[in-house]
């Protein structure tokens, strides 16, 4: 199984150089020799979890009787809609994930005012048809309307030009409540449109309004933001119409879902809410990193003192292990939480175990009088079954923890299982291949029989 020492040594060297590059940089940037577009341009900053950087995490649940099955599609749609709403808040890097079959985890890094965030999440998206008079508005503009305002004041846009465009309050003709259905279709030019039908009441209002206002602008807004603002070409009497905008199939679908349901496809309630202040997070990061570095140093010292030469090489392999793990955390990327860091530090202890198993075996074989090269080979092959089986059982536990964490939106538990599992996998590589390569390389340059004390014998 193990033949080509030089090959492995160069693979390890290449990996370490690459890992150092990833570990020490904030972005990976490789310019292309042929064009202006870089070949690689990737942000590899360590992603910190909410407990470390501060922020708000909420767990949302479908507010339906417990025995009712919630369709996965509904959950995904609800998640997408909530994501849009949250992004509108100006909180960066909002993460939303469906957890299990009826929950959504929402994370708002750096958000301190949980009330504001929660309130805007709860708010249902409201669709309005707004009378714009003769004013054309570009898509995306946020306007004020008299719908939902505490004091409905109607200001006609036709009156004197107001001093501030933002101050105009437009009149809402009709809201999404009068919508009966909405589907995605394509118009003659192949553009995606949303076809809607109105309720009876809606048809009457809409028919009246469009008859009187041919040639004027009608804005369709979602949460006061203009989706499209077409000119009324002709009265729409049958209670049917279509909304065109610059839609892709996905955005048209998302909007149709929102329109159909008024807001979310299923009612949602908040069942869990966690806020971590940023100062607490900062302190935790600093302390955990300190603890990690200290733990690593103590383990390195111990291994070197106890196992001498092989121990020192294992310590070197342990440093390779740390570099590779950090590289993986940054590349994948793994969101580091406090338990995640704890899991990583614990995996350092487990990484050492594989080497301990091998070295104890090595000592035994040497004591039994076998020569060094033979002993190393035997030690590795004999220790392998126990390394394999013991680490497999740890990986099984990690898998169960991951499933548990994922279903309940317990990101702490999930983080722990991910870093521990990664740590175990990387440690298998470093303890078995890296240490062995180092040991063989060292042995080419010295004679063991002259220095038994180097092996703690």
């Amino acid at each position, binding site marked *: 199984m193990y033949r080509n020492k030089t090959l492995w040594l160069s693979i390890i060297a290449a990996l370490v150089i690459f890992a150092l590059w990833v570990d020490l940089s904030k972005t990976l940037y490789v310019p292309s020799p042929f064009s202006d577009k870089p070949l690689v341009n990737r942000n590899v900053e360590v992603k910190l979890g909410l407990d470390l950087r501060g922020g708000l995490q909420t767990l949302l649940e479908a507010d339906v009787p417990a025995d009712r099955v919630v369709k996965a599609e509904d959950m995904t749609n609800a998640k997408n809609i909530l994501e849009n709403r949250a992004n509108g808040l100006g909180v960066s890097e909002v993460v939303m994930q469906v957890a299990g079959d009826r929950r959504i985890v929402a994370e708002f890094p750096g958000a301190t005012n949980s009330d504001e965030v929660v309130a805007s999440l709860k708010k249902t998206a409201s669709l309005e048809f707004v009378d714009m008079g003769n004013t054309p508005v570009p898509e995306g503009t946020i306007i004020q309307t008299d719908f939902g305002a505490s004091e409905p004041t109607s200001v006609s846009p036709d009156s004197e030009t107001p001093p501030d465009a933002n101050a105009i309050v437009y009149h809402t003709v009709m809201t999404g409540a009068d919508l009966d259905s909405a589907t995605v279709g394509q118009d003659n030019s192949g553009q995606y449109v949303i076809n809607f039908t109105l309720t009876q009441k809606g048809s009457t209002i809409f028919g009246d309004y469009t008859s009187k206002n041919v040639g004027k602008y009608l804005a369709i807004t979602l949460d006061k933001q203009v989706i499209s603002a077409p000119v009324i070409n002709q009265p729409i009497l049958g209670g049917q119409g279509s909304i065109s905008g610059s839609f892709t199939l996905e955005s048209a679908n998302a909007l149709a879902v929102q329109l159909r349901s008024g807001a979310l496809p299923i009612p949602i309630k908040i069942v869990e809410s966690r*806020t971590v202040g940023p100062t607490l997070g900062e302190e935790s990061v600093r*302390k955990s990193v300190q603890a990690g570095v200290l733990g690593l140093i103590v383990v390195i010292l*111990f291994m070197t003192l106890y196992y001498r030469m092989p121990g020192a090489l294992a310590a070197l392999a342990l440093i390779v292990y740390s570099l590779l793990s950090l590289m993986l955390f940054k590349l994948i990327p793994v969101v580091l939480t406090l338990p995640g860091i704890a899991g990583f530090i614990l995996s350092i*202890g487990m990484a050492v175990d594989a080497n301990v198993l091998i070295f104890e075996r090595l000592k035994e074989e040497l004591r039994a009088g076998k020569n060094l090269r033979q002993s190393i080979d035997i030690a590795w092959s004999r220790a392998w079954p126990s390394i394999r089986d013991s680490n*497999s059982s740890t990986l099984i536990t990690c898998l169960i923890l991951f499933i*548990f964490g994922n279903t309940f939106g317990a990101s702490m538990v999930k983080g722990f299982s991910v870093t521990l599992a990664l740590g175990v996998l990387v440690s298998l590589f470093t303890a078995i291949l890296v240490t062995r390569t180092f040991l063989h390389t060292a042995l080419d340059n010295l004679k063991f029989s002259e220095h038994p004390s180097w092996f703690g014998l």
Partner: protein
Amino acid sequence: MNIIKNRYIFFLISLIVIIPGLVFLGLNWKQDPVEGPIRLGIDFRGGSLLEIEFNGARPNASEVTAIYNEVSTEAESVKDPIIQPLGDNAYAIRSRAMNDETKSVIISKVEALAGPVTVLNFTSVSASVGAEVTRAAGVAIFMAAAAILLYIWWAFRGVEHPMRYGAAAVLAMLHDVLVVLGVEAMFGYFLGWEADALFLTAMLTIIGFSVHDTIVVFDRVRENSRVYRRLDYETLVNHSIVQTLDRSLVTQLTVIFTLVALVLFGGDTIRHFVIILLIGIFSGTYSSIFNAAPFLVVWENREWENWFKRKKAAA
């Protein structure tokens, strides 16, 4: 060194550790029949935890209680919170679950009382979610045990009675679970520690580690049983334990080094978690050496048939 010969002494030591733990589990239960034997944190029980730091002087706990009682409503009762000092100028306040609006009302009232505050941490979990998480945690532990039993059964298929190895590993694992639960109950009884999601994480890690350790010892039994076919089982198992003893101790030491570093420098948030891990890891090593492997011998000799008396050496 003969560990197998003294196996009943080691079983007794385990009992001496486990029984007081069971007593405290019972005491907790008696004290609060609703909450059960372990003080569950809000992750499992539902409820809210608010940690606030005062920029100025910290008010009296009774004043904060008064605010909670004032805000409490019929629909959302947050009456009589449990208030614990946190460091020099902060409080950790536990009550039943509340929504974010209630939290804001409380914060503004506290600020009116004691000047500006910083919210270090706010968590609120509804009771139904808590109950579901508790059930799932039980299922997770059970699943982990079952999966590990099956894995060992399969991994040891080459030796006689592979199922025994799986059963012995699970038994040692149960030992560690009981030790940790007992210790947690004791801490809960005296210091008011609550089991939270991190406690569950610790528990599952301990299960993983315990089995990890046991497998290393069993692996040696597996290997030796091929090499020394004529050796009687007791001597074989004892020999395997002694051979792996150095490794068990060294590994235990390295893990303990890293964990002690975490206890000393890792900060308050995870201290509880790491202490539980330390105890569990220690118990895990003990149980794999002194319980799991000797249990194989007990089974081989079917010692329960004559009241756990050891077989005569000549037999």
